[in-house]
């Protein structure tokens, strides 16, 4: 029972990060019908920029509270990723807006390679130890069940980002314009919506979310390196498909569900397989889920929006 509770908590932590990253995938898909495979690498850039910024501020202005350094890292990483997201859309995807779907997809993979290579040139191939600014000593929340402050921060920040995004999309003029553009670019432009601006904004918001996710992942694992975006990117993509790609609520539900399945699976796989497999096989759960969803329910748990835009 304690193992189960512990794994549920671990699953919620990982799942909330997946959810935040999945939102970026699903927003871009909803508005452009494009799977932005470079999204995971934006997350990586966020983590590495935060790493550099935090190291810089720790040297330049020593003696501040760790939380302040953490916040400074986020405050540098978010705008940096927003600029990168905008630049990717403006230079790579916009000119392919009316191209056959395969072209932007392959371009996205290309952008992913480009970002990884650039990061490797700038930060090197080594793992950087990410400053542990938030306490990592576990706190016993229930008897025998532990949660670290960094995990709590992760869940809290993710929840705040999700609530903020949902409010933006459902309650503001800008959000309404985003939904209108997602449904029909042409008619949205007839309403006076600068659809290019809205699409750019979608990338900017998604990238800011990715930056936060990157910083949280690096804080949880204590490392940052140039290829760290690949796996979370793939998992978050799976989460978006699981929830129903193009659907914001679906991305959040998909992220949490995927995190839970992965954590519970990792917790019990050794028992289930009679010792054949161990928790280092946890990644297979995401891809088993991806396979099952694509075969049996390609529109995802909540989705219906898969095929309505060519």
């Amino acid at each position, binding site marked *: 029972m304690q193992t189960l509770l512990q794994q549920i908590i671990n699953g919620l932590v990982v799942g909330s990060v997946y959810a935040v990253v999945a939102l970026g995938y699903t927003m871009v898909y909803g508005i452009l019908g494009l799977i932005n495979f470079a999204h995971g690498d934006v997350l990586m850039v966020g983590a590495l920029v935060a790493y550099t910024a935090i190291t810089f501020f720790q040297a330049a202005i020593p003696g501040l509270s760790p939380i302040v350094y953490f916040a400074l890292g986020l405050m540098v990483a978010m705008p940096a990723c927003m600029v990168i997201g905008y630049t990717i859309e403006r230079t790579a995807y916009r000119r392919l807006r009316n191209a056959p779907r395969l072209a932007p997809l392959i371009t996205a993979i290309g952008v992913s390679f480009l970002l990884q290579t650039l990061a490797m040139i700038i930060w090197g191939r080594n793992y950087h130890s990410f400053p542990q600014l938030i306490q990592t000593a576990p706190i016993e929340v229930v008897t025998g069940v532990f949660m670290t402050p960094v995990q709590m921060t992760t869940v809290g920040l993710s929840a705040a980002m999700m609530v903020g995004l949902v409010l933006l999309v459902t309650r503001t*003029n800008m959000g*309404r*314009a985003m*939904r*209108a553009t997602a*449904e*029909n670019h*042409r*008619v*949205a*432009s*007839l*309403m*006076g*919506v*600068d*659809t290019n601006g809205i699409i750019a904004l979608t990338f900017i918001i998604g990238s800011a979310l990715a930056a936060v996710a990157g910083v949280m992942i690096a804080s949880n694992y204590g490392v940052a390196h140039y290829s760290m975006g690949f796996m979370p990117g793939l998992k978050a993509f799976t989460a978006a498909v699981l929830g129903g790609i193009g659907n914001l609520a679906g991305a959040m539900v998909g992220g949490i569900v995927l995190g839970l399945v992965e954590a519970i699976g990792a917790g019990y796989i050794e028992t289930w397989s009679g010792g054949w497999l161990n928790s280092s096989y946890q990644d297979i759960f995401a891809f088993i889920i991806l396979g099952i969803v694509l075969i049996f329910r390609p529109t995802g748990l909540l989705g219906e929006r898969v095929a309505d835009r060519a």
Partner: protein
Amino acid sequence: MPHENPAAPLLQLRDARIAYGQIQAVKGIDLELFSGELVSLIGANGAGKTTTLNAIAGTLQLSGGELSYAGSAIAGMPAHKRLRAGIALVPEGRGIFTRLTVEENLRMGAYTRSDKAEIEADLERVYEMLPRVRERLPQVAGTLSGGEQQMVAIGRALLSRPKLLLLDEPSMGLAPLIVEKIFEVIQIVIKQGVTVLLVEQNANLALGFSNRAYVMESGKITLSGSGQDLLHDPKVRSAYLGEAA
């Protein structure tokens, strides 16, 4: 820049050509609209009427010729800026945002405006003009009937407070009673001083209401004149009103 000379046309197309890739859909047309007019553009399917409206609204660009509005050349201006300049299009097939609610659809019409109190007043006016829309406000617009969607589409366009309203086949596929209601609304809109360019398959109805009309055939304007003259023109009657010549 925009000189509001009442004698000058509000909208003017000169030798306008529009192409889809290699295919010329509109092959050099001249068209003028003066403030306060209701002008209709009639013709068979594929004559280029919808293409012309889209080019005026800016979702298509001219491949040649000139387009001026309120005294300024606007060819090349994107659609969202043309809306701000006062050109609104109710597109063919209505273009409702089916996943947004009726109210959200209407509010999209006021997207470029920031005068909150005035927007609420305009919404109220739309509800008065289209009482059935009011009953449907929280409903997802995709669940509305065709006639209700058309009314939402027109109401939405009016919320941008257009100077020039372009209507593309507002009667298409609708029951006669609803068509009647839509033409009533067009009359109200005209009385408010909005200039209207109407594309219609239902030539009889359109010509009866119009000050002037143009007849389009395979990308060219073949006839123009007052609505009444065209209504009684034997060529128009045989081609578009289903009478033997």
